[in-house]
């Protein structure tokens, strides 16, 4: 009985650490255009609690973000909201115009979903490149390459938004 009690307390203590990420998940869902970011975050945490023993012991953040992304996609399917044509078969929810900077939002929307996701995971969600790589499901090296290119493309898109010709010169150096 005491042993069971101690186990329960230990699980609650570990979950309390995981639960610290609640605000990050709310922000993630809100920035990706969820209609109910708090509901998504609560569901992520409920799943995390249920599956606590199988959560990565070293760092649960990538797992939480992947779960949130899956729930976002499910929400989008449920509500029948259509993504732009080139994004319908991706696993990356597009951000909506919630950034407060229309030029930034417009530039983000010009990027490929994978590039946009890489950029936002690092810039808005405060994930390290290694954590974001786990969310994206690719190696850290591949993620760094993707992030580098995404930054270049974003700079170009933002420059275009502002009519800044310097931006296009920077991107001209890319091979892809």
């Amino acid at each position, binding site marked *: 009985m005491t042993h069971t009690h101690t186990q329960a307390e230990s*699980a609650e203590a570990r979950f309390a650490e995981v639960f610290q990420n609640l605000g990050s998940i709310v*922000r993630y869902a809100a*920035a990706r255009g969820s209609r109910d970011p708090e509901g998504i975050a*609560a569901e992520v945490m409920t799943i995390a609690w249920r599956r606590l023993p199988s959560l990565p012991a070293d760092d649960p953040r990538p797992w939480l973000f992947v779960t949130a992304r899956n729930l976002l996609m499910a929400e989008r399917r449920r509500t029948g909201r259509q993504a732009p044509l080139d994004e319908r078969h991706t696993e990356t929810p597009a951000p909506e115009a919630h*950034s*407060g900077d229309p030029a*930034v939002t417009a530039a983000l929307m010009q990027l490929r979903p994978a590039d946009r996701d890489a950029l936002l995971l690092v*810039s808005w969600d405060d994930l390290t490149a290694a954590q974001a790589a786990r969310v994206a499901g690719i190696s850290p090296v591949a993620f760094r390459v993707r992030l580098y290119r995404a930054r270049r493309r974003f*700079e170009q898109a933002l420059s275009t938004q502002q009519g800044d010709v310097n931006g296009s010169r920077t991107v001209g150096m890319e091979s892809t």
Partner: protein
Amino acid sequence: MSRSMDRLERARPDVTAAIDRDALFARIVATPQDREQPQISGSGRRRLLIGCIAVAVLCLTAGTAFAVTGFNLFGWHTDTTIVKSPREWQRLYHDATRRLTLPPGEHWPDPTLPPDTVTSRSQPGGTAVAISQIAWECYWVHAIRHGDAAAGRQAHAALDNLLAHRVLVAPPGSPEDVAPPVGTRPPFAIFASDGGVQFVRKMYRDAADGHPATLIQSCRANGPIGTR
């Protein structure tokens, strides 16, 4: 960092989570966790796959049987009883109130079946159980606020009794119109198998241990105006 990246970071949406974190945490940890799955070897996985297929076939045939008979293995079944009139609804409700208790000084409200409504015969009893439960919860909150330990113990006992004898948990995956095995004596309230009852039990345990925040919240959310 380039100016573009700096601008991107500054454009991060400013979102403030309007969540009662403590209540959410308490609600989540009151729900059951999945059992840890043991690692399965390759051959074990194949055997498991074959077993799963067999179970799926069994479920399909059993599901057909369930659809035909309306009963499953545990005696829980689809509720096909219908209340025919508001008068019948009120009779069933009043029958239920005679088998339940309210805190001292409380009186049963006099609800009725709204017009153009179809419901099952167990629903009036479920309503009475819910009214009793909420009344005792608010009585307990009142007792805590006024330092009346005896009244608190009385409310706790009444609520434990209600959970033990008047609250049933439907088998996992049951539809909303499920009914308990024939012979279950009304009144009763049916809870889904989603951890809700465990949450309520924990709420009462916590309140008895001097942590009534969730109980107070439950009364505030569900209790009649004036008792909150």
